[in-house]
């Protein structure tokens, strides 16, 4: 009997082992090389800056709130923070407004070759690399760029686009658009077709059906995609570094400069913590709304 029980627990133990063992490398990788670095980043934000230390991190590692106090007290940094929120929100809403009709078109029942092609073109555009995009926007938005060339044809004088929030917003929307479309398509496809049929067969016009069936039912998807776009926009740093030209800064581009150019890790880590708190709160909202675990980049 006891022998049997022993055998049973060995089997259990071996089964436990076969479940844990394949997961171990992943746990080690993400635990040691992702979770711990993020925690150490958060800790560095509580150390003071010493100019001749590695990364400017105080070697004595004494706890201080000085970076947070400096961040909150400096007009320049709070401005960057508000700029970041505004630019991210404007781009998220603009992205949604542009994406919704396309997502609606793609998610309507019925298959067609054109729909498939549109769908593929949108997915593929997601894979255009950042450098091609940045170079493109410099060509498009420069003082004698393509947009100004077109404006001159209709008699509008040269408009300054580069180094303005607008340049950053348009480039960000260009980047997040395919992701927003896909998120919306996912949520629109979840609406059962029978609801449209019921609405139409009861005599509702298609605009009535849209306003009273489709739109309310896709509301969680709409809010989720705004939040998703917002978190992506908050994290964008390459775009503001290049198209903001040092005049328009966002939190993420300022973090980049603090780490790469100033080598002030403690202050960079402070802004990174602020950024992380805002984006994680938004992601939490998405998970609550969609009931899923993830967002995508």
């Amino acid at each position, binding site marked *: 009997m006891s022998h049997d029980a022993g055998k049973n627990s060995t089997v259990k133990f071996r089964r436990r082992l076969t479940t844990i063992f394949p997961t171990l490398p992943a746990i080690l990788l993400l635990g040691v090389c992702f979770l711990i670095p993020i925690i150490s*980043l958060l800790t560095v934000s509580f150390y003071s800056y010493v100019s001749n230390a590695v990364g400017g991190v105080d070697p004595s590692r004494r706890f201080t709130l000085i970076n947070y106090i400096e961040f909150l007290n400096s007009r320049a940094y709070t401005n960057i923070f508000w700029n970041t929120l505004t630019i991210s929100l404007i781009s998220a809403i603009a992205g949604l407004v542009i994406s919704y*009709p396309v997502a609606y078109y793609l998610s309507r029942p019925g298959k067609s070759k054109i729909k498939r092609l549109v769908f593929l073109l949108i997915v*593929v*555009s997601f894979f255009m690399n950042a450098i091609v995009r940045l170079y493109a926007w410099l060509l498009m938005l420069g003082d*004698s760029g393509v947009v100004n060339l077109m404006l001159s044809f209709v008699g509008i004088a040269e408009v300054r686009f580069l180094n303005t929030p607008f340049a950053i917003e348009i480039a960000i929307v260009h980047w997040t658009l395919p992701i927003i479309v*896909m998120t919306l398509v996912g949520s629109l496809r979840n609406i059962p077709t029978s609801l449209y049929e019921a609405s139409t067969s009861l005599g509702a016009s298609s605009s009535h059906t849209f306003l009273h069936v489709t739109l309310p039912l896709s509301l969680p998807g709409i809010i989720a995609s705004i939040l998703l776009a917002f978190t992506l926009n908050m994290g964008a740093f390459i775009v503001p570094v290049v198209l903001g030209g040092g005049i328009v800064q966002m939190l993420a581009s300022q973090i980049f400069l603090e780490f790469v150019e100033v080598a002030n890790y403690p202050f960079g880590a402070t802004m990174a913590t602020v950024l992380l708190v805002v984006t994680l709160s938004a*992601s939490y909202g998405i998970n609550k709304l969609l009931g899923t675990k993830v967002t995508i980049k």
Partner: protein
Amino acid sequence: MINRRFAKGVREAAFIIVVVLVLVFLYAPTSITFIMSFDPRGYAANFPPVGFTLKWYESFLSDPTLLLGLRNSLIIAAASMVLSLIVAVPPAYIFVRHSFAGKEVLTTLFLSPLIVPGIIAGVALLTFFSSIGFLNSFPNLIIGHVIITFPYVFRVVIASLTGFDRSVEEASLSLGASWIQTLANVTLPLISPALVAGAVMTFAVSMDDLSVSLFLSDTQSFTLPVVLFSLLRAMFSPVIAAASTVLMVGTFVVIAVVEKTVGLDKLLALYQ
């Protein structure tokens, strides 16, 4: 009736116009980069081009720094693709087939690189590696790339395993095949489209990455996008257009292969 049909026609036309405008918005800027990469004028030339030349592609292919960047990018992308598959596929299999305490927490951990902004991952790794004095850039870059690509493989394999009928595996086992034989001859072939999709996504993300690479590169170990980014900040040269176009065309070719073999829809498991 005619009125209604007319209204429907107008609505259809409106949809088509909006969709076309969005596609123009998505593709026009990058097409202009592509066109300008053949412009013979040097720095800061504006659209439209005044001629046709391949000299920017030639200077890309004869620039040792850019070529080293390309070589590094390819090695790092290939290494992180293989490593991501090795590290992410087994846990994905276990997570679908077994339930155990702590699975929820681990899932969150495994997918967290998608939720945390890329720049945070980049600076966190930089801070971490510099604090432990691990300053060997090449391995650091590979570790960074495996971390940001891991969730794609993990998720696409989970989606694929959840979708297929488990009785096929059970049939194989009850007919006397060992679990290794079942895994190799039944399960892996069934999820191979997902593996292809995950591998391609990993490769593409790694080849284009800047968010982690910018922080982990040094003067010897740097990727092509990192060199191009610093060039772009310093000057506006058509070489950048040529090199980034090559990079983009490479990605598109790989995606076309995916579409022809397993179908791009597989990649969409990554979107939901």
